[in-house]
């Protein structure tokens, strides 16, 4: 086969040649690609060890061309701690959804951040449990219908959303903690830059880093991919404001 003469887009080196299992229109694929591009640009692929979660991204290890382990539900930050503490010169990242990170794994994420573990966390917030079929997550918006809040999340009985980026940014051990969104090209570019800064934080030993990414779940939201992106822009972003919640002075100096 002849190579195209003007190649403008290809699979990043950080990816394996595996067809995606994610639903059409899901932004997991975008988030995966951004991570792979950053690892390639920073030449970190051989020294990176990923920690996959439980949830839709349970199979994340199929896509990244790095060593990978697969954690129990919510425990990825603890596993990452174990890896990083014995291999401090390696790059260790977790990839976790909102049920994994903000519900069952709340203890692990908070304490990994409080200890200032030199790991990077990519947190996918799509406001529901995708893998099990769209149940209410800690991040589900008030009034939002899910299979376990069929009349819409009633804050009187089912509580309020948890804003993880804001919460973790209060901890001294955190070097970099921001929220971005994947709903349009501009925001995707900003998300990539944030992922880069998160890995730069780790590479420089500047503490815990996390990028929260507002994401879609067209299948469980019962929306088209385009309508899902619109939903993120119109409903998720107001509830989860985008921004830099903590950027340590040392990482502010980093120019890329």
């Amino acid at each position: 086969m002849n190579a195209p003469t003007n190649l403008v887009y290809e699979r990043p080196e950080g990816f394996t040649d595996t067809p995606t299992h994610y639903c059409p229109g899901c932004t997991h694929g975008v988030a995966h690609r951004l991570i792979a591009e950053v690892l390639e640009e920073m030449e970190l692929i051989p020294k990176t060890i990923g920690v996959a979660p439980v949830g839709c991204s349970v199979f994340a290890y199929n896509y990244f061309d790095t060593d990978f382990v697969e954690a129990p539900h919510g425990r990825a930050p603890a596993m990452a701690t174990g890896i990083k503490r014995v291999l401090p010169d390696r790059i260790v990242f977790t990839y976790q959804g909102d049920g994994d990170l903000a519900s069952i794994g709340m203890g692990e994420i908070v304490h990994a951040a409080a200890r200032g573990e030199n790991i990077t966390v990519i947190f996918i917030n799509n406001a529901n449990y995708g893998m099990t079929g769209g149940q209410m997550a800690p991040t589900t918006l008030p009034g939002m219908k899910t299979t376990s809040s069929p009349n819409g999340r009633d804050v009187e009985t089912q509580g309020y959303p948890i804003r993880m980026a804001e919460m973790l940014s209060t901890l001294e051990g955190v070097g970099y903690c921001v929220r971005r969104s994947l709903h349009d090209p501009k925001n995707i570019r900003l998300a990539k830059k944030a992922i880069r800064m998160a890995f730069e934080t780790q590479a420089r030993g500047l503490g815990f880093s996390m990028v929260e990414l507002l994401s879609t779940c067209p299948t469980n939201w019962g929306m088209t991919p385009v309508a899902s992106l619109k939903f993120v822009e119109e409903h998720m972003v107001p509830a989860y404001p985008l921004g830099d919640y903590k950027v340590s002075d040392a990482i502010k100096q980093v120019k890329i």
Partner: protein
Amino acid sequence: MPKELWKGNEAIAEAAVRAGLQAYFGYPITPQTEILEYLSRRMPELGRAFVQAESELGAINMVYGAACTGARVMSTSSSPGVSLMMEGLSYIAGTEVPAVLVNVMRGGPGLGNIAPAQSDYNQAVHGGGHGDYPRIVLAPSSVQEAIDLMGLSFDLAEKYRMICMVILDGSIGQMMEPAEMPEMKPIVDRNFDWATNGAINRERRILSSIYIDPPAEEVANLRLGKRWREVQANEVRYKEYYLDDAEFVIVGFGTAGRVALSAVRAARTEGIKVGLLRPITVSPYPYQVIDQLAGRVSGFLVTEMNMGQMFDDVRLAVRGRVPVEFYGRTGGVVPFPDEILAEIRRIAAGQWTTDRDPRDAWQARMVSVLER
């Protein structure tokens, strides 16, 4: 090395260090906390990893992560904490990575108390986490034996890519005894061909306990089973006392076995021909030696610090050929040698229980204890 006076928990910690422990992750819980405290000082001074985790869930998953890199790693806890670790143990087993977990058992169920007990036998040996998985379980009966078994526990875990638990009751963790430490072993990079330590100049590796395709999970379980059969064939350990001419035999592990030995010695001075079998590996269990003994002795007495858990394993080996009696203390109560001696005398007088589950008969005899 000369003998020194060592507290059990600290001896376990130092023995693990000398066996090349590279990372320790733990959480405070009585009666094992001295292991955590000791290693909080010892590991950093050697430049090794130590983390006091946020919970036992955190600790066992830190162990899981470090184990995936091929490092020598352990956690320690006590009964309620070990219950919390069962999820992690199942994942570690399913991922086929080596790890050591020490359970300094206390009275239960529930919050129970902080006194010595052996009531996590079934959890360690037969149950615990979900799924079909084997595990090696060692049961020391003294501080010295605990020291000796720590090095072995890492070797076995790595040889068979399996969890190795060390179970002891709180009394061994808390008491001081003269004991000899081994020499310090250097940290060795074992460079395992399965370790996820960064794909530098090699193909990438994945470590996972997920087999989404059921036939693949079946293959994995059969692989674990095959490895377990090797463990059963090669790693059974036990200690025999006065068995050569024994007419009946006590079976007890850990502290219950040690107390029984005092009772056996006292009975011998009375001319009662009783022996003692003390399993050191309670998993794999020494079924074969009990099977052989069952062919020549008149019966067994199982002594445990629980309601009769290992009792079932002895009965399994005996297969109904001779009576098996039970005497236990539970809830954090340690039997005195005199209590076991009284049982020995009763049995020597021919009073075997044959009409019902010997645990029922024991419980009926315990009424006098409960009424005290």
